[in-house]
């Protein structure tokens, strides 16, 4: 059992608050990713769980034991830092065994545990090297090895892949996920990269400005974002937002950016004439033969497997992702089809998802 409870946790630096009361429940073995733009408080929260930052208000419990006043070493956690934080003068083996050495473990035990962790991560040939002799990916793996050796209740990752190149990042992403599936240890992971969050997490916590915007599984958040921020943050290319107006007494039509009218599968009652923000995922839009809403092609970006189109629709620019290859040129007129599209309708004032 290794659960983490974060209850009404606040953090201020002097008079400047950075976390405004955050509640998160993390179940045993869960892979939770805190995601949000720079300065949203996600790293601060992680560092508070680690014990590296003091807690201004609220409680953090690990395994139902409040850890607010405990030193980092007494919290039974291990942390992987963005810049790896390997001890430069120690070998890989010494780096990995340092915590056990400090805890007074016997040499044979340290060696056994270091060898075991090295086996999991494929680090055996590197054990006698110094960090300076390793590549970025290898260093990252050593940092994870250092965490694994301690067999902690909770792993904390602070943007561990940000310093790696794109290709290595994809590889390490898969490795971390595989590692979690193998070890089944609770992980709290911080990133600003929504793709990392979508691909790896059991549960995503989207944060902004010291608040939690939404908590849920990746697909819950993708399919039912609570507000415009979450809708725009998750997904690549990002969701399109159009100004719209709900039409009809049973609210079964949407006027899209003054460019045309589309039917809604389930109407919004008593909302006739309400100004809204309409979110549509780029992949939910298609090209129709004739009957769609007319738009002008601005840019065509073939990626090989998909084609990304930037089009102008009634004065607003949106992105369309097509699974097929098309021969279109900038300036051409197309008809957009929203048939079967999932519309995300948000209140224009509150930016919150509109309830039916």
């Amino acid at each position: 059992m290794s659960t983490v409870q974060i209850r009404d946790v606040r953090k201020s630096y002097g008079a400047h608050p950075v976390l405004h009361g955050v509640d998160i429940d993390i179940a045993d073995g869960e892979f939770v990713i805190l995601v949000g733009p720079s300065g949203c408080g996600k790293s601060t929260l992680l560092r508070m769980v680690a014990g590296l930052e003091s807690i201004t208000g609220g409680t953090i419990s690990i395994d139902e034991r409040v850890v607010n006043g405990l030193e980092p070493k007494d919290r039974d956690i291990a942390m992987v830092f963005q810049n790896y934080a390997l001890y430069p003068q120690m070998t890989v083996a010494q780096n990995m065994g340092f915590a056990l050495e400090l805890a007074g473990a016997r040499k044979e035990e340290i060696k056994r545990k270091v060898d075991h962790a090295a086996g999991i991560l494929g680090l055996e040939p590197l054990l006698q090297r110094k960090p300076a002799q390793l590549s970025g990916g290898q260093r990252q793996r050593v940092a994870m090895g250092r965490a694994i050796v301690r067999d902690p209740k909770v792993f904390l990752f602070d943007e561990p892949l940000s310093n790696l190149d794109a290709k290595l990042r994809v590889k390490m992403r898969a490795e971390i996920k595989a590692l979690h599936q193998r070890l089944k240890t609770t992980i709290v992971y911080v990133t600003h990269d929504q793709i990392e969050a979508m691909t790896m997490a059991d549960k995503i916590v989207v944060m902004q400005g010291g608040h939690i915007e939404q908590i849920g599984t990746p697909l819950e958040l993708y399919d039912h974002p609570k507000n415009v921020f979450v809708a725009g943050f998750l997904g690549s290319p990002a969701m399109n937002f159009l100004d719209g107006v709900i039409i009809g007494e049973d609210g079964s039509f949407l006027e899209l950016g003054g460019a045309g009218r589309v039917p809604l599968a389930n109407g919004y009652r008593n909302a006739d004439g309400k100004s809204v923000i309409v979110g549509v995922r780029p992949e939910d839009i298609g090209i129709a033969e004739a009957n769609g809403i007319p738009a002008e092609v601005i840019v065509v970006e073939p990626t090989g497997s998909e084609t990304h189109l930037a089009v102008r629709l009634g004065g607003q620019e949106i992105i369309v992702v097509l699974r097929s290859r098309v021969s279109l040129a900038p300036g051409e007129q197309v008809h957009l089809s929203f048939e079967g599209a999932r519309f995300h309708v948000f209140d224009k004032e509150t930016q919150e998802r509109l309830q039916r």
Partner: protein
Amino acid sequence: MTMMSASIHANTLEKPQRDWVLVALWATLALVALIWVAPFVFIVFTSLKSNAAVMSSSAFAPPVDPKFANYSGAWDRGRFNTTFFNSVIITAIKVPLGLFISAMAAYALAKIEFAGRKMLLLAILFGTMIPFQVMLAPLFTLVNGLHLIDTYPGVILPYLAFGIPYQVFILQSFFRGIPKELSEAARIDGASHFVIFRRIFLPVSLPVLAALLILDFVSTWNEFAMALVLLQDRDMWTLPLGLSAFQGQFSRDYGQLNAAIVMTVLPAAIVYLIFQRYFVSGLTSGAVKG
């Protein structure tokens, strides 16, 4: 094919264009080196000449008949047995102890949050701004009041007090440059501040410590004014004091005087040569990280 290889051949044979800035730089460096080396050459040459040879030959003329006896004579007459021993004791205690204390203080000032940290740092920095000559009289009164005149602690303690502030200043700015994640990782691994200092920070700072060691060794070894005030008993004199007495006593024997000077500066030169590769990298790493 033949044409291509011929043109490559011509290219490689072509002289690279002369970089006049580099040439000027080298010439200036050579000149500066010459100016700095000249007195040393003069001293070494003179130390091997008899008094008559000193008077009759040019200062930079190599000794025709090297008089190595100048060295043994100077050693005896300058009481080097005593002064050398005193200098070794004082330097061997003061330099490592001072560095260790400075490093610990610098770590605390750079990495431990506590109330009044900035004020304390300012107070220590203030210590670097006061020339010790201003303090000589009160220092004498203080050391005399503690009955420490003519003792090792009586000179080592003031040396520490005047040496530590600038070392703390340099080291704390270096420690600040060490990523905080390194000490945070160690804290999570279960290390106390002292363990972090000893196992992580000291090894990382070796180049800077080596640089400070050289500077401190040379300045302690050569220190004259404070020793002159605090050490009155000839049996407690250090090398520079012994050297000063030399001049009055044997003012006509330039050979022995210069032999004594060579023997005095030699240990400092040896320490510098041993640590100089760290010294250079220490200066640059301090500059970049600090």
